[in-house]
């Protein structure tokens, strides 16, 4: 279950660079978010995906724009990886009418079907049953589209996980269940919330392939993600990927970390996958220092532009409470 698939696919130099770009876009955007929070410009809770970049960056590098994702409150990294445009993303986080959701959903419910971000849910586990439906639609359409359901280790214990995996396996749905196992559900360590040692073993009960992956290693992620997506596109059904990682910012940004083991977070941060992968790209000649610096400058400009845009947007008017409840506006 922990083995890399045979004939493991290797990411081309181009794809490696693309994965890194997505990781960097996540990290730069996340960093900018912290700054805005400290400036008091974001007042809602923020669940950072910092430290977990490799997982959605690699998945997204393998997905087309038409492929779908269903994600969770800790999902901005997933959306940024999927190349959601940052202007409407930031406008949404800031509750502005030019946000993807007109400011009605906010960071926990960011949606952008145009880039395949179909659902962001705040209910643990609920991304999975809905992802099945998108996959079912693709199957009926005869398309090759795949759907990725992101969720956490804590979500692996809730009923919706089980129901979704059973149905997906039974119907051979083109869906990939990507668990971002960061070792904690809120403040509870995985060994205190989960019976069994590996989430991937739960796939056995559905006769579904299940793998435990190093979610901080773009090569391991790539090999497993590639196989899972190919499997789904070939009509062979779902895969469960348990991707081991760590969240650098705790549960909600600003939480205290008292519940963590001593030194645990520091040890993980010392192995930060972002600089590690950056160094590797340079060492292996995939990219030059200058190239990556330029990439970073471009990304930072994009982020800055998005924030400036968002701050200049209007807030929605109260009539918006009567809109989008139903297709038809509710009379005043």
């Amino acid at each position, binding site marked *: 279950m922990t083995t890399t698939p045979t004939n493991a696919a290797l990411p081309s130099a181009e794809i490696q660079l693309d994965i890194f770009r997505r990781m960097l876009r996540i990290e730069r955007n996340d960093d900018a978010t912290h700054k805005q929070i400290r400036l008091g410009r974001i007042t809602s809770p923020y669940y950072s995906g910092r430290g977990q970049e490799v997982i959605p960056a690699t998945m997204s590098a393998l997905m087309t724009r038409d492929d779908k994702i269903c994600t969770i409150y800790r999902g901005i990294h997933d959306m940024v990886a999927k190349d959601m445009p940052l202007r409407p993303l930031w406008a949404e986080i800031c509750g502005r009418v030019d946000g993807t959701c007109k400011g009605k959903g906010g960071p926990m419910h960011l949606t952008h*079907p145009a880039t395949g971000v*179909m659902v962001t849910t705040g209910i643990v586990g609920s991304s999975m*049953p809905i992802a099945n*439906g998108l996959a079912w639609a693709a199957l009926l359409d005869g398309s090759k589209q795949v759907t990725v359901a992101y969720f956490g280790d804590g979500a692996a214990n809730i009923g*919706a996980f089980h129901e979704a995996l059973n149905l997906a396996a039974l119907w051979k749905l083109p869906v990939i269940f990507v668990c971002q196992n960061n070792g904690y559900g809120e403040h509870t360590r995985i060994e205190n919330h989960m019976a069994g040692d590996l989430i991937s073993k739960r796939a056995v009960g559905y006769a579904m392939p299940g793998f435990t992956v190093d979610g901080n290693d773009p090569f391991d992620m790539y090999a497993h993600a590639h196989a899972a997506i190919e499997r789904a596109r070939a009509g062979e059904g779902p895969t469960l990927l348990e991707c081991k990682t760590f969240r650098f910012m705790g549960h909600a940004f600003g939480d205290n970390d008292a519940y963590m083991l001593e030194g645990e977070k520091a040890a993980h941060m010392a192995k930060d996958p972002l600089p590690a992968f950056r160094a590797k790209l340079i060492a292996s000649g995939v990219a030059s220092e200058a190239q990556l610096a330029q990439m970073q400058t471009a990304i930072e400009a994009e982020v800055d532009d998005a924030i400036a845009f968002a701050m200049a947007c209007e807030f929605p008017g109260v009539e918006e409470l009567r809109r989008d*409840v139903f*297709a038809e506006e509710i009379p005043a």
Partner: protein
Amino acid sequence: MSEMVTMTGQQAINLALAEAMERDPKVLVFGEDVADREGGGVSGTTRGLSTRFGDDRVRSTPITEQAIIGAPIGAAMGGYKPVAEIMLMNFTAVAMDMIVNHAAKLRFMSGGQSQVPIVIRTMTGAGYQTAGQHADFLEAWFCHTAGIKVVAASNPADFKGLMLSCIDDPDPCMFIEAGVAIRTPGELAVDQGKIPLGKARIHQAGTDVTVISYSTQFLRCIEAVKELEEAGISVELIDLRTISPWDKECVLASVEKTGRAVVVHEALRSFGVGAEIAATISEELFGKLKAPVRRLGAPYSAVPFSKPLETAFLVQPADVVACVKELISRG
């Protein structure tokens, strides 16, 4: 006028599903045992559909209510119009998160980008001694949830016409198929088409009192009204049909005319749908009523098993008669 045919509500729903599936290849049917291999539904409502439209469009599912609502939500966002069955209304409790936190809210939370045009069909109702976990009317829960419509017809024509409308509606609809109501035969036009959501039906006009009801309980009200007419009391009888959004205009106009109102439903009286309707009538027609608005509903208990208790639990025609007479007696 078109030719009339007689059938049960179940048959009428079956017809509506077949017509919608025929017309629109995006319509899907989904739920426990709904395909013909499994008998076409536990009580046969979907019989014949999988044979006619294929197993891809009519699929039996595992017992998995969260997935039974979750998958249609996703499929709806993928362009389909799934009609999902939750066998009995009590089992909506298992799927409540998917219905309330997701189906009903995704359009709003996405600022209108997502739409979830699903229909949730569900049976319920006491009278069959199925006891505490198989007979609850829980429509008030969904009426109190913004973003989902709630429909509960009482007769075959309405079952067909409203089902057609629910399938075409761009938003989620909860479609209640009360056991007694779907089994009671009635007439409908061979070409019965859509009946708009949100519109009540005045079953009969009257001048002394307005009786407002829906679903099975509406059938019991018809009986009560016959008896009242014999006693010389003129009743305006309204079948709400859609409970949320309900037809305020129709109800208020009627009660403004009669000056008296009784709301009757099978669900618990306490905190039930009747409370909203009664509160609205009392507020909007303040000073214009001849008598207090009455509500009849189940007592505050679980649905009991024993036949005499089950009978006492349900509002009977005699209760409606007594209530109306008391209102009239106040002058």
